[in-house]
């Protein structure tokens, strides 16, 4: 099979600056223009295309980018990512309905709370390794959901309704029936996160994460403060999850604990691995495909998830490194080890 990742990377390396820029610009324009390209070839029968673009597609792309920092960059298996998404959404829900703060004021609070919970979970849990970390994070995700179900202050099992929409921005109105502004806001957030992740990847944190992923002990011996960078990876992932949750709550207007089940964590993880773990661009493509597929085949009302499961098994068996894997050089080096 042709290696799409390498073919793309070679083209990119040999392309002139103009070519690169025009490709990036046209890609970004295409993504922003997607809500207008509602035609039978790509649209989603059975649900509104614009709202599908926001949730699940856009939201899963953003969440996968966040989880990719944790799982892909630093190799820490996190099965409870939904917890940070839930914390962001509930912060928006509680503060939005009980105080006069608007979306823009709540967003940093939501991210801050998600980061704080990332530290609280990460400080003890990140001393564990591999699958132990996986089960502890999974437990954390479930605990957050169970607390949301049982705590009457945040609505219990009925959740929170009547969450306010963000105030108008550049004359665009945020309404439930018009998800386009939400989608554009989400794309902007995603691009910002992507840019930040790319910047970090080539600097000290990125190199530290690479070292931790490849060999924790060696990294520690070489003087990388592994624990510190692991917590940072966790906290940054949490911040992205919290921001996603906050925006999600302000679009969906009412949240219930069942929206934040383990399945979301698993789906986001599936997006990361499916797209090509560790390669942010691949992860975004993978997440877009995995989130889009079940909506595209919604006409198969009953076996829709069944097909999804089969596709997951097939793709993983055909391309175990994901659709667009990490650079081959690095893989080769880690195999030489």
């Amino acid at each position, binding site marked *: 099979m042709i290696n799409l990742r390498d073919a793309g990377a070679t083209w990119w390396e040999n392309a002139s600056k103009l070519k690169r820029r025009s490709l990036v610009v046209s890609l970004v324009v295409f993504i922003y223009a997607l809500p207008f390209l509602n035609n039978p070839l790509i649209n989603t029968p059975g649900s509104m295309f614009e709202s599908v673009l926001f949730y699940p597609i856009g939201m899963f792309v953003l969440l996968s980018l966040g989880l990719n920092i944790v799982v892909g960059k630093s190799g820490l298996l996190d099965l409870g990512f939904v917890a940070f998404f839930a914390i962001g959404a509930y912060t928006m829900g509680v503060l939005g309905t009980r105080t006069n703060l608007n979306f823009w004021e709540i967003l940093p609070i939501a991210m801050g709370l998600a980061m704080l919970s990332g530290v609280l979970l990460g400080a003890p*849990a990140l*001393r564990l390794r591999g699958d132990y970390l996986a089960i502890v994070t999974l437990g954390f995700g479930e605990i957050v959901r*169970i607390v949301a179900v049982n705590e009457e202050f945040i609505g219990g099992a009925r959740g929170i309704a009547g969450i306010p929409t963000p105030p108008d921005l550049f004359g665009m109105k945020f309404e439930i029936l018009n998800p386009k502004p939400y989608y554009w806001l989400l794309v902007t957030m995603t691009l910002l996160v992507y840019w930040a992740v790319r910047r970090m990847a080539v600097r000290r944190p990125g190199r530290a994460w690479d070292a931790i992923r490849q060999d924790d002990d060696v990294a520690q011996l070489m003087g990388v403060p592994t624990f510190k960078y692991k917590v940072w990876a966790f906290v940054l992932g949490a911040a992205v999850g919290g921001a996603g949750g906050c925006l999600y709550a302000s679009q969906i207007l009412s949240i219930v604990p069942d929206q934040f089940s383990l399945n979301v964590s698993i789906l986001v*993880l599936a997006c990361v*691995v499916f797209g090509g773990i560790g390669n942010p661009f691949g992860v975004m493509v993978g997440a877009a495909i995995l989130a889009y597929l079940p909506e595209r085949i919604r006409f198969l009302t009953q*076996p829709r998830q069944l097909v999804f499961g089969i596709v*997951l098994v097939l793709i*993983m068996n055909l391309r*175990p*490194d994901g659709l667009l894997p990490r650079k081959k050089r690095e893989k080769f080096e880690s195999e030489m080890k």
Partner: protein
Amino acid sequence: MDFGLLFSEFPSLTFDGIALGAIYALISLGYTLVYGVLRLINFAHSEVFMIGTFAALMASSNIMGVKIEDDPLSGGKLILTIVVCLVVAMLTSGIVAVLVEIVAYRRLRKRGATKLATLISAIGVSITLVEAFRIMTDSLPREFPRFFEKSLVAEIAGAQIRNDKLLVIFAAGLMMFVLDRFISKTRIGKGIRAVSQDEQTSVLMGININRVVTVTFLMGGLMAGAAAFFYVLVYENTSFRVGFFLGISAFTAAVLGGIGNIRGALVGGFALGLLEVYGSVLLGTAWKHVIAFTILVLVLLLKPTGLLGESIQQARV
């Protein structure tokens, strides 16, 4: 916080906890065996268990002709029904587990794919199986017939002993004993232990890795099938999503005891069963998973390899 109830009912709760723990322990054996050999969380194991419950249901209604509204069985027919259901559930789960390995893991294992790729493949299988059963059962739970009248047979030190739970504890204990002997005494059991210590060396020593892996999955499946039958015997219902929480609990139990360690899985299973029963009396049933996870986190922080420690040398991705 109802400590009074916990103390007054302590013996009975302990008995219930052991019965629940027996089911957890049987399921967690499957996780721990596969983890020991392949260093892989078999995410589809909870679905192996779920299929076992449906196999037991099919066996009771289609093979033995027991209906929900029938009177309780007695004598020879009762024993025969129990044995047939148990065997059918075990065999079905065992075969499903082996098929899952062939479909979802074997190819990836041979190509030396990352653990995460295999994990996602397992998740895919899990989704496929759950959805297949959801469609087949119209998303409805199914009732399981009551084979015999459930009654208190004895009272030991204030503990009320119910006959079905007593049967479960005894039968599960017997199975764990047989499995433990199988792993420690037989040739293939030694092979399984050798592969969990060092895969490459054991292959060089002439161990057929594919056979070891198949037998490992078969054993895990058989135990999950037995757990499935005991589950429907006690709780008398099943649904397509029955495996989800039981699977998480059983995996927690395996980690609690020290994953990869067979006796650890048993200790972890019983410990978790007891903790959940005590915890649900103290704080209400809604919080029992929270208690279980909190204790798991505490145990892992104090003793990062679980209660009995891993049998394998390294715990890393």
